[in-house]
């Protein structure tokens, strides 16, 4: 980790695994990532059928980032991200049915159909959304870190942002306060190389992992296609933060295979570039190969695939049959009622 690379992501990022992963761990990561992948493919299909409206930002390609980070987290930690949040909420442990039903705008959705693709929350699992204003989640996440420290609960907030959000002024304002007050926040830049359709070369000066340097915040660049590199980097960063040393920045070099949202044909990049990641560095394929290298049989892998497919199909079915919100729901949840 910490390898210097050009912004045009190469395959030369070094990955360091501290220990050989066990079969159980591999299977867990495979299952987590496959759930995100299959779920998102299904979401894309339901969008195509008109069951999901508006925006739908798929996480396909970036699964190793949240799967690896989640494997390194502790239960008291909190997570916050922007609008490409389906993967983050799924890995938190929520029932996928609630997520799919939120996408279809149904009463059974995790926000009862009132949030949609970009606004999902699972507070009981430590997931604080799901925010549609690029960069706003970083200040809020810094506040979650502030609260962890205030309450002395040994928690850390993992505050995710895309490479586009990293340019927002409030991100740097947040770095300043987090460093000043040694807040327990792990900033994770998911650098998928495009801020919607604008490449990092065209929108960002310098390197994202170095943007904490003026504030004394350590940063590293990590191969975000390698789930173990992610997990190791996050473990190390969390240990640093939990020891009271303040925030940390990890820049995950990753890639989204699909367009920014559903109607984006992604003409700003070449097919070769996409296939470089999709065909050669896919995080799920990597873990599958490791499993098949003596840790699991074809049949075991197939069984996992089948199990995930069933979960996703069940979620899709629920998202079609759960009723639409009642008209009365229009007026609820504007304010928390005050006892008189």
């Amino acid at each position: 980790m910490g390898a210097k690379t050009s912004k045009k992501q190469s395959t030369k990022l070094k990955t360091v695994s501290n220990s050989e992963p066990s079969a159980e761990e591999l299977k867990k990561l495979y299952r987590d990532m496959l759930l995100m992948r299959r779920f998102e493919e299904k979401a894309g299909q339901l969008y195509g059928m008109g069951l999901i409206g508006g925006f739908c930002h798929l996480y396909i390609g970036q699964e190793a980032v949240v799967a690896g980070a989640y494997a390194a987290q502790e239960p008291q930690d909190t997570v916050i991200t922007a609008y490409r949040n389906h993967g983050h909420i799924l890995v938190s442990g929520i029932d996928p049915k609630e997520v799919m039903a939120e996408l279809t705008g149904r009463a059974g959705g995790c926000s009862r159909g009132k949030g949609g693709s970009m606004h999902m929350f699972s507070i009981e699992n430590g997931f604080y959304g799901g925010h549609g204003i690029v960069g706003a989640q970083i200040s809020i996440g810094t506040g979650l870190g502030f609260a962890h420290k205030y309450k002395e609960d040994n928690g850390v907030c993992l505050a995710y942002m895309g490479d586009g959000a990293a340019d927002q002024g409030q991100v740097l304002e947040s770095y300043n306060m987090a460093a000043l007050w040694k807040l327990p926040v792990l900033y994770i830049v998911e650098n998928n190389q495009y801020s919607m359709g604008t490449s990092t070369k065209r929108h960002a000066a310098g390197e994202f992992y170095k943007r904490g340097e003026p504030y004394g915040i350590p940063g590293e660049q990590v191969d975000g296609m390698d789930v173990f590199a992610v997990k190791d980097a996050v473990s190390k960063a969390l240990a640093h933060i939990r020891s009271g040393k303040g925030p940390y920045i990890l820049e995950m070099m990753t890639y989204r295979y699909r367009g920014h949202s559903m109607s984006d044909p992604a003409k700003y990049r070449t097919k070769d570039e996409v296939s470089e990641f999709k065909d050669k560095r896919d995080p799920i394929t990597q873990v599958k190969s490791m499993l098949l290298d003596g840790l699991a049989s074809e049949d075991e892998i197939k069984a996992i695939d089948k199990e995930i497919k069933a979960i996703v199909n069940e979620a899709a079915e629920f998202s079609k049959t759960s009723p639409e919100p009642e008209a009365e729901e229009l007026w609820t949840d504007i304010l928390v009622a005050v006892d008189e």
Partner: protein
Amino acid sequence: MTIEVLMPALSPTMTEGTLARWLKKEGDTVEAGDVIAEIETDKATMEVEAVDEGVIGKLAVAEGTENVQVNDVIAVLLEDGENASDIGEVSASSSSEAPARVSEEGESPAVASTVNAGGYVEGAVVENRDVLYAQGAVFPPPIFDEAPFLEDTEVVTVREALCNAMSEEMRVDEDVFLLGEEVAEYNGAYKVSKGMLDEFGPKRVVDSPITEHAFTGLGVGAAMYGLKPIIEFMSMDFAMQAMDQIINSAAKTLYMAGGKLGCPIVFRGQNGAPGKVGAQHSGCYASWYAHVPGLKVVAPWSAADAKGLMKAAIRDPNPVVVLEHELLYGQSFECPVSEDYSIPLGRAKIEREGSDVTLVSFSIMVGKCLEAAEKLAEQGISAEVINLRTIRPIDRHTILESVKKTNRIVSVEEGWPFAGIGSEIAAMVNEHAFDYLDAPVLRVCSADVPQPYAGSLEALAVPQVDEIVHKVKQVCYKD
């Protein structure tokens, strides 16, 4: 069971497209995620990926076919052990559960029920107050017996009252903390938090960098985790930097989260024209915040207001904006001593009873209205002065009951006229008390210009007592 591949929509508005190219042929094996076709719309060419694995049993639509309807079957996948004979008749359009994108003609429009003009709700106990408010209903304000609190009072400044309210709440609730520029070591830019650092320490009285956008977001995050932050803006003009966090994050999240994530936070600061500080330090933003569902907005005038509203704001489980006024900080008033003195939000106060005309205002303008009422009394006009205290939810009931009695109303505010609080009051009276009016509703507002610096111009820009008197005489036809 064979799997039907349907013509996808690439946006909510797409109804048809061209199947430009097949990238797989019949008999090919596909994995989930494989690109199988390209389709064209008027906007773009997009790839269609397989969602399931299988063997392509049939390509139902030929390459180059135009006007393929969304959700038509374009291919059929065979799963393990199936062959072409398993494919039934492929219908032109899918039999599946695709919903109609456009509602059926002839249906009556789906409009959520609203209680509007004439929507009076009577009775002492009002259930679903927030719902009724959102629907525009008129209902009695929360019950509040203020008299017992007024039996034991002390003379304090508005500044001291605010400080006392915050300190009292911080003594009883560990989750309350104060954060803002110069709130701690400097004792507050306007000395509102004087002594609080000494009492509560730097963990709970936090000097922030000049970084409104992010420290407001930080407060929102802390509130979402269960703390009760008081975020001070040195001036509400500076809160413009943080408007996104106040509205998009603090006000909307409870709704977006289906009620699962609230934001108990107070945003407070000096709001209005303190005198000769120019256009960027003099704004009244009451109507900006009052416009937003999910926020509550209060604007104290007296020390009692300041104490009672601040305590209510801190205790409220929602985001509350407290609009203070620098020119009031040093003014002294009788103020209840009780630590239980919390004024229910949504209840106005009649500061002076009258029978000829109603004056409605908030913050510093309440004092000007009382002065005007004195002058008017000398001229034989009896003015009733309503101190709104809470701007959102506004106490429609008290305003309307007053206007039904006086039949005339003038609103007074320091904000600009366009879409101001006075505009809302005029609309409300129009909707609910039109038949009671003997004169049009008039408004007294700041001049519709950026605040000038020069004292002579500023006096013209900000509402003055004489202007209030003049407008009242207009509605009384005594001008």
